[in-house]
């Protein structure tokens, strides 16, 4: 059973490596959005420190969402997805593998890029550490919840805009606690623990429920 998980994961990563631009555009989108804000709101250190956490999280939300469209679309067009649905392997596991690949390609790089962005916004070192931890816990939730929306809007006209309308409201709790943790890290480091715990709780519950919902959504979209 885990073999099928690994093979789907391996296949998705391999496909992404063969078309690196898709992955890189998402990451550069994130970098550009984050770099635009200081130019728009002014470059004073004090302002940037306050804005930084929120801007990084919103940019991460948008970057993760833009890449969601591709999660099932290519497989849907060439019929691979239909074959995946027809196999006797549990669909939940296949979906989870695809989500994991999506996170490894869009979420994890954002976590690794966080220190760079933190420096752009003059965040303190502990705040950058907390930001990385929060992103590490939060970005998988974005991929997991987003997969439900991607499955529901599969093959629809204007799917991308619709996807944002469906998914962004559900992202709000992650945004609130993710950005909240980083903001608090500037004041008192120990106070961030409940925020990180809540993010971990979101991660665990969405890890259990979101693949089930995405699998159900895929079955609805393809029948």
């Amino acid at each position, binding site marked *: 059973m885990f073999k099928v998980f690994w093979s789907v994961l391996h296949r998705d990563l391999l496909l992404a490596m063969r078309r690196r631009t898709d992955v890189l555009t998402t990451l550069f989108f994130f970098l550009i959005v984050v770099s635009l804000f200081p130019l728009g709101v002014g470059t004073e250190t004090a302002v940037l420190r306050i804005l930084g956490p929120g801007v990084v999280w919103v940019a991460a939300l948008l970057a993760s969402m833009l890449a969601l469209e591709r999660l099932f679309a290519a497989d849907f067009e060439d019929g691979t997805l239909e074959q995946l649905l027809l196999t006797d392997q549990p669909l939940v596991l296949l979906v989870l593998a695809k989500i994991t690949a999506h996170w490894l390609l869009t979420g994890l790089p954002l976590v690794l890029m966080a220190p760079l962005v933190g420096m752009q916004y003059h965040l303190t070192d502990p705040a950058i550490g907390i930001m990385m931890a929060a992103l590490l816990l939060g970005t998988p939730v974005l991929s997991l919840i987003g997969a439900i929306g991607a499955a529901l*809007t599969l093959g629809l006209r204007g799917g991308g805009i619709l996807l944002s309308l*469906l998914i962004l409201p559900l992202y709000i709790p992650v945004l609130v606690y993710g950005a909240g943790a980083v903001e608090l890290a500037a004041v008192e480091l120990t106070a961030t623990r409940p925020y990180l715990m809540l993010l971990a709780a979101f991660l665990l519950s969405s890890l259990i429920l979101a693949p089930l919902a995405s699998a159900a959504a895929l079955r609805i979209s393809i029948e």
Partner: protein
Amino acid sequence: MSSAWSKFASPSTFYPLAGRMIPVFWVLAAGSLLVGLYWGFFETPDQLGGSNAQKGYYRIIFLHVGAAWMSMWLYAVMVGWAAVGLVFNTRLSYMMANAIAPTGAIFTFLALWSGSFWGRPSWGTYWDWDPRLTSELILFFLYIGYIALHSAIDDARRADRAAALLAIVGLVMVPVIFWSINCPDPNQCAALHQRSGLGKVDGNILFAMLTTTLGFWMYSFATTLMRVRTIILTREAQTTWAAETIRAEVRS
């Protein structure tokens, strides 16, 4: 039991039943709204609270609380019908869920709107990022998302099922909205909505508030049933009974 239930699960038998129920709910809605508003305007104290009392403007509570309650309740009912549809595969359940959504969205908007008009004199601002305000806004987005997804899919069966799943996923937000009001200690959390209980509310105010809420509830029944009748006719237009009904309606 199952025969009586399944009898009205068919759109063709539900259509006339809904038609007979609509006037009843309109009368109930108008009656309770009139009583509630009369009571709210003439039988309640002019001021609320001791020091720094709220003046007459607190009376928007009679609309605001009812609308806010209905916004959450209708979402739960919508999800209930959506779940029934997914489990039993009954077309009428999806139609009900579909018919509830606009009314729910309107109540959510009303709750936000009336709240901001109350907030201006009492909090000094139309909008604040209070947890409850924010989560009510999210609820509004959830309704809009449901309606948008349903109307984006051309195939009615897929639209019904996909929107139903989305509604169920969104249900996780409703308890968050309901309990976001409970900030037990104002020193610990900066929520503008404080914990309140029905027992603490003055009897006349409570009566008026509950009566207008009942009015809103009956109004929701009436509009939902009217909308579901339209949906039934649109979806069943190819059947003979629907075609005959439409012809009869046009003639009269």
